[in-house]
């Protein structure tokens, strides 16, 4: 009896079920809300589901994937959207990461007004996408907007969100909207670095860049890794700013927006194609998974290097 109770934390008999009963609500909720829809999406991707009650759903096998990746000029557009998604991810990750780090370094200094700047840098994060989009549409308004006036000073002209470079302006807005979040994670990491490490390094003669390279950067490893992964995954899934800033427009769409547009009748065909959209979202998921795993491998190697 005593041996049995030692083996089971909650005791013997029916009491052994307590952990499972306690686990059940959370696990059930997770399965219902998290895993269930994900599995359903995978199943839907092999059907012609529309999402409209009353219409029959037929099994179409790999047809949605075939159409999405290989068939017609639409597949070319999808591959273009895929490439654009990767470009978006790369530019956003690199610039947002760097900018967030610089901002964190600046507001981590003991300078007057640093709390004000911390707040200012973080404010865009708490604004909704619609507000962010509206602000930037006004800011980038051709013919009278502030950015137009700045361009005019240098004799430049641009249609901004209406021109051929609209995609890159959305990247600018994405970085502006999220750099504050990256900064906060870096800042939290910097504030955990023991002061005595800086003192010891200073005694050894380290200054400026040497302090950053040999103390701050290694100690920031958890924050660096977190930001790296969040930036990659976040930018791969971003599409709402495109909805607000450019709409469904040739030459600007990313994969996430294609999924939404196909699922909810926002393309020129105005059909609900949720089976096809599910296939597109599985492709996006596999992309996020592959890049996320690759990034995780880099992160793990970095942690072994600096944290062991």
């Amino acid at each position, binding site marked *: 009896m005593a041996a049995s109770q030692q083996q089971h934390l909650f005791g013997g008999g*029916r*009491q052994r*079920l*307590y952990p499972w*009963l*306690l686990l*059940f*609500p959370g696990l059930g909720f997770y399965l219902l809300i998290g895993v269930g829809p994900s599995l359903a999406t995978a199943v839907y991707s092999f059907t012609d589901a*529309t*999402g*409209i*009650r*009353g*219409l029959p759903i037929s099994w179409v096998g790999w047809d949605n994937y075939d*159409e999405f990746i290989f*068939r*017609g*000029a*639409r*597949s*070319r*557009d999808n591959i273009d959207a895929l490439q654009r998604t990767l470009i978006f991810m790369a530019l956003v990750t690199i610039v947002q990461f760097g900018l967030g780090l610089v901002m964190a370094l600046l507001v981590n200094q003991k300078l007057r007004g640093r709390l004000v700047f911390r707040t200012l840098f973080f404010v865009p994060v708490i604004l909704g996408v619609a507000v962010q989009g509206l602000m930037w*549409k006004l800011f980038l*308004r*051709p*013919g*009278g*907007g502030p950015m*137009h006036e700045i361009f005019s000073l240098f004799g430049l002209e641009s*249609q901004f*969100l*209406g*021109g*051929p470079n*609209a995609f890159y302006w959305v990247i600018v807005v994405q970085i502006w909207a999220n750099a504050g979040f990256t900064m906060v994670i870096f800042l939290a990491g910097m504030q955990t670095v023991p002061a005595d490490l800086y003192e010891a390094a200073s005694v050894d003669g380290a200054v400026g860049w040497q302090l950053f390279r040999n103390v701050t950067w290694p100690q920031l490893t958890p924050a660096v890794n977190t930001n790296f992964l969040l930036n990659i995954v976040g930018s791969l899934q971003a599409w709402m700013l495109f909805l607000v800033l450019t*709409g469904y*427009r*040739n*030459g600007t769409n990313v994969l996430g927006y294609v999924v939404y547009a196909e699922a*909810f*009748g*926002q393309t*020129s*065909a*105005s*059909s*609900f*194609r949720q089976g096809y959209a599910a296939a597109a979202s599985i492709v996006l998921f596999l992309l996020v998974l592959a890049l996320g795993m690759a990034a995780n491998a880099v992160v793990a190697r970095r942690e072994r290097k600096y944290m062991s």
Partner: protein
Amino acid sequence: MKLLALLAIMAMLAAACGGSDDAASDGTSDATDTAADDGSTDDGSTDDGSADDGAADDSSTNSGLEGTLRVLIHQNPPGVEFMENFNSEFEAANPGVSIDMTVVNADDIPTVNQTRLNAKDIDVTTISVTGFANAVQPYMTGADSPYWQQLIEAGLLMDLSGQPYLANYDQAAIDGSSFDGGVYALSLGRTSYSGMFVNEDILAEVGVDIPTTWDELVSACEAVKDAGFKCAVAGGQDAWPVFVGTYGLLGSLYPDQQALVEGLWDGSVKWDDEQGIKLFERYDYYANDMLDAESAGLTGDSAAQRYAAGDVAFGPMGAWNAGAVADNAGFEWEYIPFPGSDDAADNQTLFGKDDMSFAVAADTPVPDIAHAYLAAFSEPDNYNAFANATNYLPTQPTAALESALGTSIAPILQAGNFAIGFEQLFVQPKGAGQWHNAKDGALWMYNGDFTDPAVAAEQAQADLEAGLAG
């Protein structure tokens, strides 16, 4: 004992997490008024927006009807104001009825209809702002049905055939709301998107006549620019207003729009044939020479107000902008079909669409109230007030626009020169590329996606053929 206590706690948690069925109906009352441009009906009001008192009273006073009618309309300020007044009067005439109306952005209509019809959470809904013209035809092999056709095929919309209020509408409206032998919507109005406003004062000052052909339009445009005026403005910031003006160009070069659709599908018409390249060359002139650079900073609404300032000769815009022009313009103006063809005879038609259409959910729990609501709305006096409040071209033969727009286009409508445009007829082949639909060509030239009209035309045809090849 402990186990019982644990189960009791879990049961309480489950009960707390559960929702009441009432929430579904309660949650519909908040209007999601996004006030975004929908590009289709946002015009100024030429009426006070009041529903006609007699309309609601006539049909259902003391009707004995009881229940809540859930109604969905799209954002359109004068239309919303009218419907709010109409609802109040309908409720007053039917004390047992309450109207729960939701307002959404026109772009969100497909999504909201899909979700609310699925959830049996709507009774009378704005099913479309584009009509039912683009049903998949037998020759459109493999094409996906547009969303409204999907809803009908799913049995989610009620067949209104035989309802007496349908008799108040003209046959074209009935035909435009019909599918597969049934009438599934009530077309509340049409709008034209292929015309342009003409500032007659500027033309008189410059000494040119209202253009009736493409060459005359180009000459007039150059003349007004030489005289220091602007030729034309459109809402370049919103993108879609740029190609709104050129629906007329497409319509005048291809007067038989249905034949164009069939020709594109069977290959007898190509975007890159002689006529197609001419279309793109004219798109190029329109986008990069005719439209003033100022257009880039204008939204669809602000372009109409800018046009009304008086120093712009032409306003290639939808008829829904007439209210803004009429309210602000201090000059004489006309709304004419876009003269895109070299032959004046091909420049007589206004192209457009059936706009706001009401449908009834097939499984509404209050069908009697829904029919009474539509009947009251369809009373001629009430409908006439609605058309004049919204500036829709009426779908009831007894109604007439009393506005400046109505006066301007009355001869065109009386001559029967209104037709459903290409946008409402075309269905894209599955697999067609993003450049397949040349109706957007002016926007491509405007955005700089293409600089050579011939290259753009070839790309359009290539993307179309990729879909046709299946």
